[in-house]
């Protein structure tokens, strides 16, 4: 993308975040997700799709253990979101609602298929694009996903052997 296109995408993104909250059905979903403890089913599907890419090289290689780890990360993110104050729950809710809207997913994130069917390559490209995006709002959205997913993984003792962290010392 050229810089001008990126800027246009950024304008769309900013408008998207603001507008998404004004579409009644979307507003209802944001309100619902802000009120519910943790992630909605749709939010969970998005995290489950992004986590294996965000954590590529960190999750277990074996398929079944890998799937279990992804589910633990999803549960961890959900628990994290549930413990946030209302204004942050609302922001996270807006991010996931936006990512779940097909046009936003397609044109803003550049992911052509619904999240569960999206290829790791497309998701990887999405994360790289937002990480380096000229629009600060999208960089902050990338960082939110980064921090939530990576934070949830490294909070799990299952992640520690690979990095050599022994866990807390025994006190007695």
């Amino acid at each position, binding site marked *: 993308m050229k810089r001008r296109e990126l800027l246009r995408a950024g304008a769309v993104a900013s408008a998207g975040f603001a507008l998404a909250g004004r579409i009644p059905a979307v507003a209802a979903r944001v309100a619902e997700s802000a009120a519910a403890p943790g992630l909605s089913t749709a939010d969970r599907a998005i995290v489950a799709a992004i986590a294996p890419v965000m954590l590529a090289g960190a999750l277990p290689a074996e398929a079944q253990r890998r799937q279990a780890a992804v589910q633990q990360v999803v549960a961890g993110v959900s628990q994290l979101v549930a413990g946030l104050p209302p204004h942050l729950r609302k922001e996270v809710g807006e991010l996931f609602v936006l990512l779940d809207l097909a046009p936003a997913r397609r044109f803003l994130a550049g992911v052509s298929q619904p999240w569960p069917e999206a290829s790791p390559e497309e998701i990887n490209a999405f994360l790289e694009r937002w990480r380096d995006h000229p629009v600060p709002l999208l960089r902050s959205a990338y960082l939110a996903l980064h921090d939530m997913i990576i*934070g949830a993984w490294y909070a799990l003792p299952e*992640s520690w052997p690979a990095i050599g962290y022994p866990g*807390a010392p025994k006190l007695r």
Partner: protein
Amino acid sequence: MTIRDPIRDGLARGWKVTHASTLTDDLAIECDVAIVGTGAGGGVTAEILATAGLDVVMIEEGGLHGSDDFKMREGGAYPALYQESGSRKTLDKGINILQGRSVGGSTTVNWTSSFRTPPETLAFWQSRFGLAELGEAQMAPWFEHMERRLGIAPWPVPPNENNAVLARGADKLGLSHALIRRNVRGCWNLGYCGMGCPTNAKQSMLVTTIPAALDRGARLLTRTRVDALRWRAGRIEAIDARAMAANGVDPGPQRITVRARHYVLAAGAIGSPAVLLRSRAPDPHRNLGARTFLHPVLISAALMPEPVNGFQGAPQTVYSDHFLHTAPIDGPLGYKLEAPPLHPVLFGMTVQGFGKTHAELMRQFTHTQALLALVRDGFHPESDGGRVGLRNDGSPVLAYPLRPVFWDAAKRALLTMAEIQFAAGAKQVVPVHEQGVLHSSWAEAREAIRRLAFEPLVARVVSAHVMGGCGMAATPEQGVVDATGRHWQLENLSVHDGSVFPTSIGANPQLSIYGLTARNASRLAAALTGRSAVPIS
């Protein structure tokens, strides 16, 4: 060896503690002094006023957690003990702010680094804000007093490798450095200060001043959020507060009213200005919430040939102030160098990138060393900090624009840290920055760091020191409170916390808050009782 939880013991012997989330009815309370917040300022104030015989009520939004609850697990500690679960950020999300939120405030989770307010900072306050009474000699007895009270002393154990790298690299480059004093008694050298001290060695407010106040009959309301101070004709009449719901983050239905002769705000920078903003407190000169400072921090990570295990041992024991003294205090921004403890969640979240590059870096976690540079903001004319405002729901948010004078310091700081790390024997160094990659030599790192983009959400910037927003000054035109913490417009209100600092401190701020609060709370006790205050040590 069994560790006794002093909180559990205190509750068993009858401390008057109300967990407001368990209330089934509204509550109305009367007392001599109501203190909002239980961190460094609130804790010291509570002990001094209770010792003077005053009837004290402490109000805390967070929960009451003791050593039995401190499990040294990041996943549980951050949501329970930090503002916004550790993910508090500035308005544009450009700076991550670590700030405490439980009984004891940030003192429950800080890394024990103890510095007196630097003399050059006090001198600047004297010349710029007319704070003539706050000279080095006048403040020294108050710092000595709090150092005795909190066991602040040189730490006799050799630094862990994470800190030793700073000393070694600084030596090689001829940079001055020294050891950090700590507020601990009988410390086990574990390295988990940031998750609540599991052995009660850290002399936080949670295990010192607050138990002392409660033992003297003070009351404590936890899970209680102050909505506003009700005031009329220049006097506060009551505090309107609300019980938090059981989850600790949503407001619950019960209302709490506290009436007192005098009120002390000690909700921390961000928290205290927010209470005053919600109260629509008089602010004729637009000082409220302004000049809020963060010591914005840059981080540099290094891969060392030998294990570092940065999660083990006292987290901060070595510092260098070399780069605070290379220019005039109001010239190009200086920075203090220290080492941060490394734990998987916080390090994993802070370090840039994702997927294979991130996983590769994490695999070298035990050999990773990190340095931090905290930039001294608030002295240069173009470093005027941020402003605290309110969201629609009344929660506070800090707008802190990162200006060119800061980015200039940020670049110099990343360069300095990489040079020190290579001098100390690092195999590779990676600036913590979205464009940062591993470099194998100082020459290569130097060229790359010079080319990095310095802008928000590209350079990673964090903060653990929030200061200002209710600044003190000799005149109401320049500040929110006077040199003793008394509010310029509301006569029965004092502010006792880091929010009164008119600039950043230029050092980890806990002892600055303790010392100034000891002074101001002693004066307040004398004014309220008509006798001079009883010394507390």
